[in-house]
């Protein structure tokens, strides 16, 4: 029963991202949208934590949120999505957990 975790808040102002990383299972996925894409900013502890996740954990980010925030040069393991792909992705996981 794999879970897709949806994060949309800034990783610098609260502990959603770090809590999510603590309770992930090996074949879960993380989708970053909104201010959560700031976690991919180069040179941050948050990006390093995401890069060090086990390979089995898929990492996704909404492309329009990356572009709006001028975050380029994302790690190779990140798959960039648009909204239709986001919807499709949610259907591929048994559960979706939104970190509201």
């Amino acid at each position, binding site marked *: 029963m794999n879970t897709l975790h949806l994060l949309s808040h800034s990783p610098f102002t609260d502990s959603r991202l770090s809590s999510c990383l603590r309770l992930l299972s090996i074949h879960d996925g993380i989708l970053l949208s909104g*201010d959560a894409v700031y976690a991919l900013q180069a040179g941050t502890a948050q990006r390093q934590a995401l890069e060090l996740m086990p390979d089995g954990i898929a990492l996704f980010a909404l492309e329009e949120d990356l572009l709006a925030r001028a975050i380029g040069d994302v790690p190779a393991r990140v798959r960039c999505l648009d909204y239709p792909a986001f919807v499709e992705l949610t259907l591929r996981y048994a559960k979706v957990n939104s970190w509201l």
Partner: protein
Amino acid sequence: MAKSLLLISRQAPWSGPGAREALDIALAGGAFDLPLAMLFLDDGVLQLTQAQQPAQLQQKDLTANLQALPMFGVEALYACNRSLFERGVDSGALNLPVELLDEHGLSALLQRYDLVITL
């Protein structure tokens, strides 16, 4: 003599109205010649990065309004060095000329102003 005002902007640019509202206060205050300064703190420093594309989110550009601050007489612009560092933002490539402050500089700044508003 009008009271001096320090505006602390701590919201990221595209997650809600906070960043724009702080900027609107600064521009309005500047237009009325109030002695006013603006400090970018925490996620507020993310407003200062270059090459943002808010049109991707159907939002209006904030950078042009930020760059209007000096024209409205708001020239006392500061950013928290630690906030920039934690977020991986290059302090040498910002869209606005700001003075960088360490913790000591921040508390000294707050003491210099009569009023403080944090958004």
